[in-house]
């Protein structure tokens, strides 16, 4: 055992963990020539005590950095222990962890030392060594370094499964105030290069079937939530724009955990906005999988998501005219909008109702949250109701039910210390 490696791992894993991306699916890399590894399974090999998934070896190449971003633990002016891995160390940790089935692959990020290209070039060397010398076909998520050259970034795309670069803060003004050396323009430029190259390769594949894969798991980004005063509307609209313009696979929302003393941001020791972060993810899912438009979830008059109830229920209570939905006749898209009905149960409803009208006892078994859904749907034996229930009343009844059923009460997810 090498104590120096243990120490480096401790420092450089600790510094990398605020990047919350953990996906390892979306790429179908095959194990060629009896080498090592493949991708596509999307496995979470373990979970840390905070309940987050561990699927990749997520480390920084180094936490030395020439930048001084106020929200970052590795900022230049911070008095923290610094370390840097060698190329060989990262390669052998990745390979040996992978062989023991600890991980799906590598997530490599880095502080910026000397300059952007110098850093990016070192990261590229690691990725190339893994792919070309070690015949490693596991998952590789590579952060791109803001300001690196187009040449290096597009070359990396030939070896990485996913690439990402973080917006950090939802608006350019927010970013400029805390990280004057960074800009959303850098992010856009790099996302744009990779996007253009992806389309180019996709075209090529139409002609030559075996054209090489280019960033097969696509691109993602991360937005820090709660460091600066932006609203959920700012965050979701920004995310939406990037989803559209760069065909991002994911936008990650990371509740800000104070790491530095700074009067412009939440004080050290204050709790991260975990519920707010969760509501943003729920909204993101509603937009990507449930057919919601971002404009339905947040509006200038309703710029922040309700933390007490989830965004789907919140939308339903603001749009009583849409309900009740008759599960025996309504289209799939409408059933998906009923609070308490998810993708799976909606599909089961559509499937089962072909054989006869669905009653409450049948719906109860299909896996939907009947207690919640009942206020928004009609079924074969719905009780006859005179007039519609007041949304405010429904909200109170549901919240009351959640309090009684402590398992579902979101605030319990918060730690007491």
């Amino acid at each position, binding site marked *: 055992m090498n104590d120096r490696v243990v120490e480096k791992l401790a420092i450089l894993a600790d510094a990398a963990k605020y990047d919350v991306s953990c996906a390892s699916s979306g790429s179908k890399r095959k194990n060629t020539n009896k080498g090592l590894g493949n991708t596509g399974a999307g496995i979470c090999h*373990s979970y840390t*005590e*905070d*309940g987050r998934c561990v699927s990749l070896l997520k480390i920084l190449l180094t936490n030395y950095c020439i930048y001084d971003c106020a929200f970052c633990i590795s900022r230049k002016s911070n008095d923290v222990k610094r370390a840097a891995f060698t190329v060989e160390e990262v390669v052998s940790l990745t390979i040996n962890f992978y062989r*023991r089935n600890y991980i799906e692959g590598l997530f490599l990020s880095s502080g910026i030392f000397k300059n952007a290209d110098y850093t990016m070039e070192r990261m590229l060397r690691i990725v190339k060594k893994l792919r070309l010398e070690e015949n490693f076909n596991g998952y590789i998520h590579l952060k791109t370094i803001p300001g690196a050259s187009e040449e290096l970034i597009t070359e990396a795309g030939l070896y990485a499964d996913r690439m990402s670069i973080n917006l950090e803060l939802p608006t350019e003004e927010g970013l400029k105030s805390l990280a004057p050396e960074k800009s959303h323009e850098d992010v856009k430029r790099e996302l744009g290069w990779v996007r253009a190259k992806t389309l180019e390769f996709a075209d090529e594949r139409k002609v030559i079937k075996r054209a090489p894969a280019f960033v097969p798991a696509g691109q993602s980004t991360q937005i820090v939530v709660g460091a600066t005063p932006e609203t959920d509307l700012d965050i979701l609209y920004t995310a939406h724009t990037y989803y559209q313009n760069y065909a991002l696979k994911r936008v990650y929302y990371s509740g800000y955990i104070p790491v530095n003393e700074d009067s412009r941001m939440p004080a050290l020791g204050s709790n*991260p906005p975990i519920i707010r972060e969760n509501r943003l993810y729920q909204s993101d899912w509603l937009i990507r999988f449930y057919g919601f438009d971002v404009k339905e979830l947040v509006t200038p008059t309703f710029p922040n998501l309700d933390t007490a109830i989830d965004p789907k229920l919140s939308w339903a209570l603001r749009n009583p005219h849409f309900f009740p939905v008759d599960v025996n006749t309504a289209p799939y898209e409408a059933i998906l909008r009923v609070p308490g009905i998810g993708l799976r149960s909606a599909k089961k409803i559509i499937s089962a109702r072909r*054989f006869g009208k669905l009653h409450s006892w049948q719906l109860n078994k299909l896996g939907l949250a009947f207690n919640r859904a009942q206020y928004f749907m009609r079924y074969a034996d719905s009780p006859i109701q005179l007039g519609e229930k007041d949304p405010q009343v429904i909200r109170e009844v549901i919240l009351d039910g959640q309090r009684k059923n402590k398992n579902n009460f979101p605030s319990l997810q918060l730690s007491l210390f």
Partner: protein
Amino acid sequence: MYNYLFDGSFEGLLTAVYDYFALRHQQAILQTDATFHTDLFTPTHRVITNEANAERVWEGLQKKVGRSKSYGLFTVYLSEDPIAHRHLFNYIVLVFQKGAEVTFDYRHDDVLQVENFAKKVNRERHRMKAFVRFSSTPTGLYTAVVKPDFNILPLIKDHFQNRYADQPWLIFDVKRHYGLYYDLEKVDTVMPSNPSNHSDINVGELFNDDEYTTYWKTYFKNTNISARKNLKLHRQHVPRRYWKYLPEKADSL
């Protein structure tokens, strides 16, 4: 109404379906000797497992519902749960009576229960893809010990063979006393000749900590964000019963 007694094998279950139609019985409850209670009023039919008849049912089933759905039904069998087996028997009978369409009729209890058991087994299969932890032993063999809730080794065989094609490995199920062994060419099922004392396979020898175990534990500890501590969620994802076989959790037991 008949009590059907079968030997607990998958072929036995399929033979029971064959018998049900051959004997033109009206209703049957599938049981094994272990779960069977004699009652005076219900006649008993003992199913004698017959490979040819089982094969006929299996082929007929594949023709009706397709290969992937029949494979899903096999996974339900691997739950080793007598109730699942009973639903599975009813389900297969139903498919032959009413056609493949009935597999979408979630109003039907057998259809719904079979689907739910399939989901459970599938979750365990996925978990074991995640929770297998290889030790690197001095002979070059990578070894792992697992104790899954269901008999899922047959379901993860291809995954490990494809992924770890260049290293020999052994995954041993201590609950069921058998393992999968990959020798760089093919995967074989291995069994200790005397399960009670593991004379061929010494489970203790399958664990071997090295520097990478230490590095892994270090990594696991430092990638945690203590400000977000949430042990309830943690245990939901990694239930305690698996900790013994996970180096990063074994010390917490």
